[in-house]
């Protein structure tokens, strides 16, 4: 099993504040890791570190075989990140946005269209400027851009926010499909009930460090086991 993310006593600093104060984490390929924790714990910073956006101050961090202490550039092309903001150009239409982000990895027209269809922003919304979309539609467009990039490691920060129930289910099935295709996923989310359904592993981020949590098994499985 290939280790996609390896963090050892990783310290990352934002200004003068240590957002990550010695994080230890190992993620294997194909896992879906759910990051939970209070606000300010460092979930976003952890994702940004793995995306190569936040510089490593101390400790060790190896993502997809790239040592983040010395080289943050090579990891970026293989990682797809969806942050709090959508990363969209508000004056352009949905199609233009997804095509642009697809172009950053050289995706073909067909892949781009498929990504849009998958996230439900093809057809009606295709030629609408992003500024005129609802928050949920913008989120889905951003996800379509992410899908079009065919990343090996997906880093999602509160991806469910703004989505309705159908949108969330669609997102979850897209994520599972991506892992079947070989991707690895790390999701930071406050959605507790999705833990069992979506994630293969649960991790708590607290005070800039990480603790593993067992995923609660539903009562029915336990009784069936006996």
């Amino acid at each position: 099993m290939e280790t996609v993310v390896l963090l050892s006593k990783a310290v990352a600093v934002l200004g003068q504040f240590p957002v990550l104060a010695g994080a230890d984490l190992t993620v294997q390929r194909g896992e879906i890791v759910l990051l939970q924790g209070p606000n300010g714990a460092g979930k976003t910073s952890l994702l940004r570190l793995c995306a190569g956006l936040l510089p490593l101050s101390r400790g060790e961090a190896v993502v997809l075989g790239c040592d983040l202490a010395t080289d943050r550039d090579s990891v970026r092309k293989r990682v797809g990140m969806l942050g709090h903001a959508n990363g969209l150009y508000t004056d352009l239409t949905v199609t233009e946005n997804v095509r642009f982000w697809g172009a950053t990895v050289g995706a073909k027209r067909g892949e781009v269209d498929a990504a849009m269809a998958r996230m439900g922003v093809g057809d009606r919304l295709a030629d609408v400027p992003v500024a005129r979309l609802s928050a949920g539609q913008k989120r889905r467009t951003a996800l379509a851009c992410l899908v079009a990039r065919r990343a090996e490691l997906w880093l999602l920060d509160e991806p469910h926010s703004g989505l309705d129930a159908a949108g969330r289910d669609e997102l979850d099935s897209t994520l599972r499909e991506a892992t079947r295709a070989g991707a690895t996923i790390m999701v930071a989310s406050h959605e507790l009930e999705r833990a069992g359904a979506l994630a293969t592993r649960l991790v708590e981020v607290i005070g800039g460090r990480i603790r593993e949590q067992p995923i609660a098994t539903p009562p029915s499985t336990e009784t069936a086991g006996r």
Partner: protein
Amino acid sequence: MAVTQNRITNTTATDPLAERSVEPAKRRRGGATGTRFTFVLGAATIASMALLVLFGLFLSPADITQGESVRILYIHVGTVWVAYVAFGVTAIASALFLWKRTTSLTWDRIAGASAEVGVLFMALTLFAGSIWGRLSWGQFWVWDARVTTTAFLFITYVGYLAVRGLGGSHQQRGRRSAVVALLAVLEIPLVHFSVKLWRGLHQEASVAGTTKVQLENLMLFSLFLALIAFTLLYVWLVMHRQRVLAMQDALDDKGLDYALAARRAESSTAATTSATTTAATGGTV
């Protein structure tokens, strides 16, 4: 987890990424930036400055055309020489910082210290030059190539210092300001050349032209004395300033250590609280 608490201060042994803290061993007093070398250097500076005052103000003769006002020359040439040397050093130090093999924050700090001293001396140059201009040909300012380039260099390095003050990690600061310094090296000759070409078209350049000062023996000697005295002063200032910057950076790192300890303490208490809650509710998340 408790073990790491003790190892926070002992960063150099375990952490290749952490900066080496400034060793206090070589300092004369804890916290001061003086060493034996700078003491000797400082004494030499004072001595040469005293000699300069003697020769410049008293022993060297007055100029035939300009009279006593030519004595400003010694200060003016001294400061302009230092200013240009300072910026040269900033450029070289910036290049060394960016070059992979010699990269070290010391070069960044030397670049910064040198730029600060350079800006100071550049201001002095413009001031002394302005006074001298008023005394010898009645103008406080003149638009010739060298004067204008000097003014532009001054503004450019004020901008450089502004970039240094932008915040962020030490590495970020170093990288950003080093690039800006090297771009300035690119830009200044262009400014100089364009102003020269510009003023070359104007016949009135002769008013601003090179000051016709007859440099006879004693005056020449005083001039060299000025160069030496000011160079010593420059080196002394930059050494001290660089050390102060190093101490500031070390202070920032120490601050990070304390912040790390505080954050870890916060997470330990939070962990114990949540652990007890988990136990109380029977293990469900």
